[in-house]
């Protein structure tokens, strides 16, 4: 049994909120550089150049990459040999988000009630997913999610008879509907299988996988590659202003499902696909 004081969780999450909103991970930076080299539209190329410059300014001047610093999504993988002390874990996580967003000059974009819409003024609460895993470590993944792209995400409850072609059509139709609204070039997190909410979770989690890492399952890897190629032939391009770079990656996660169903969730993220990972 290992004991972890929850104040360590708070301090770590505060740092992660600030880090994720000012610095993109290496895989995302590399993907943007590669896109800039291969984009065929001159205007598209100019926009990709601006996105690279934007990242540089964000890091150097500590201005958030995007003004929508997102709703804080936390994946918390807890080793089953860990014991937390010093307070309630969920409160500690939200305190980390509060300090990160208030002290880090990040935008407060969360409203307390979806209908009455009063801003909570500190970006809490976070959306938190807990997972129990073997071991005595805690892995924190912080992924601030902007809503320009979140609003363009979709779930389809397909029939088994729709098969893989149905899945492809679902992905392509989501991208087409999103178009310029989702701030392309986008990253797609796709969940296939599970139940209604499980496939949405799979899609969200898929966005945290490095964009240069393909699925271990051969047919899923092929599907990821085929979809990326097809999406980039849609013509939407950087900023939706035309071009050959509409997506940087398609990350697909699968899970067993019911004999009667084929759920597919497409969680769209913009080119500011942020995540920060720490292991305690």
């Amino acid at each position, binding site marked *: 049994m290992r004991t972890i004081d929850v104040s360590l969780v708070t301090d770590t999450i505060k740092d992660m909120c600030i880090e994720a909103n000012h610095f993109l991970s290496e895989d995302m930076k590399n993907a943007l550089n590669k896109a800039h080299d291969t984009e065929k539209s001159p205007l*598209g190329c100019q926009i990709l150049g601006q996105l690279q410059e934007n990242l540089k300014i964000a890091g150097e001047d500590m201005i958030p990459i995007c003004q929508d610093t997102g709703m804080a999504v936390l994946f918390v993988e807890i080793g089953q040999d860990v014991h937390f002390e010093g307070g309630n874990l969920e409160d500690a996580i939200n305190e980390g988000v509060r300090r990160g967003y208030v002290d880090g000059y990040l935008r407060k974009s969360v409203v307390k009630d979806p209908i009455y819409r009063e801003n909570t003024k500190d970006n809490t609460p976070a959306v938190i997913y807990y997972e129990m895993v073997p071991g005595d470590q805690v892995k924190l993944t912080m992924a601030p999610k902007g809503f320009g792209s979140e609003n363009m995400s979709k779930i389809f409850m397909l029939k088994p008879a729709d098969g893989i072609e149905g899945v492809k059509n679902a992905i392509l139709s989501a991208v087409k509907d999103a178009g310029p609204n989702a701030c392309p070039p986008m990253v797609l997190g796709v969940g296939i299988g599970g139940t209604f909410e499980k496939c949405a979770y799979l899609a969200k989690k898929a966005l945290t996988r490095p964009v240069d890492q393909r699925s271990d399952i051969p047919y899923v890897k092929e599907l990821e590659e085929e979809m990326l190629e097809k999406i980039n032939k849609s013509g939407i391009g950087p900023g939706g202003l035309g071009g050959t770079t509409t997506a940087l990656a398609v990350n697909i996660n699968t899970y067993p499902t019911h004999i009667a169903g084929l759920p597919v969730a497409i969680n769209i993220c913009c080119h500011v696909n942020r995540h920060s990972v720490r292991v305690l």
Partner: protein
Amino acid sequence: MDRHINVPLSDEDAKSLNYGDYVYLTGTIYTARDAAHKRMYEALANKEALPMEMKNNVIYYMGPSPAREGRPIGSAGPTTASRMDKYAPSLLDLGLKGMVGKGKRSQAVKDAIVRNGAVYMAAVGGAGALLSRSILSSEVIAYDDLGTEAIRKLEVKDFPVIVVIDAQGRDLYEEAIKEYGEQ
């Protein structure tokens, strides 16, 4: 075509812009997004005065991140314009000449753009740090309680935008996709 345009936007300048033009705006613009539009819409319904003059002005759909000390503003990129589609035609009919945001607009907004000789421009979404460099000052002029969604008066210099829907109703998003689409 690259253009340098002063804002507020004159009727002549608005009509002279073509979809696809790369435009640098210099002068005064105002920010408003979801909550501010809702309030202005309700004010109009109640026959109350709006907090800003619409005639020949440009609204930037944007809610910034907080400014660090000594800076005019934080990250300041565009938000999705379609969420303002419900409100935009009324404001255009009052003389609003330009809108800056990102993403598609409804047919009703396009019709109002053509009817009023206005223009819809896009700033690059997700480039809020870069765009903040073209903003010289920022002052909250209304709805302070809305935080990031308050109405701000911005002084901008060479603020970069691209004309998406021009006064003739032509739409760059629809045309550009045809040029590079293979499906």
